[in-house]
């Protein structure tokens, strides 16, 4: 039973660039959530996708956008990168009617 996978593992970008992070949910899951975890902090909710629609959004600017594909995988896009966007980005998957979210290993983004 495949768990949540994320790619790439690490990424280094410069200010102003754009980045795309990818997530494949746990087998059988249909809902994907994205979180940002700054160093030394707990994860902060960015948004959640279900049925290819953004279902809920946290307090993040429009530079953060996402997409969910028919196979339930998801992408997180961040435009006009800032130094403060450096963080671990975690993807979590779940079933729409269940409350537990299972996390992937994360993508470490460094913005120089």
């Amino acid at each position: 039973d495949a768990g949540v996978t994320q790619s790439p593992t690490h990424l280094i970008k410069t200010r102003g660039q754009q980045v795309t992070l990818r997530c494949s949910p746990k087998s059988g899951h249909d809902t994907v959530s994205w979180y940002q975890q700054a160093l030394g902090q707990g994860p902060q909710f960015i948004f959640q996708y279900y049925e290819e629609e953004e279902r809920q959004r946290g307090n993040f600017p429009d530079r953060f956008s996402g997409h969910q594909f028919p196979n339930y995988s998801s992408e997180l896009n961040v435009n006009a990168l800032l130094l403060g966007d450096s963080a671990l980005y975690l993807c979590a998957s779940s079933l729409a009617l269940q409350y537990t979210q299972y996390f992937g290993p994360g993508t470490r983004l460094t913005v120089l």
Partner: protein
Amino acid sequence: AQTVTQSQPEMSVQEAETVTLSCTYDTSESDYYLFWYKQPPSRQMILVIRQEAYKQQNATENRFSVNFQKAAKSFSLKISDSQLGDAAMYFCAYKVREANNLFFGTGTRLTVIP
């Protein structure tokens, strides 16, 4: 506002001993869920244990158990017979039934001393 507070930034425990990690939360909701996640240096957030607020019985998963005090809004994690592999950051998290997002605390770093 919904907040989760972990007042112990760091804790240590001797191998084979018992340790309790504290978590309090603030909410006006009555129907919610509580979680403890473990994040080892590998960074993957691993579910340790979960509790439904409507259940009075405390959840237990092998060596891990919780003390859920709904009136006090407290949700502590007890780890029995601590093992070296238990060393990690532990995050307490909360989710309102109708919402889709988890609220996390700032974490407690647990060190296990051989």
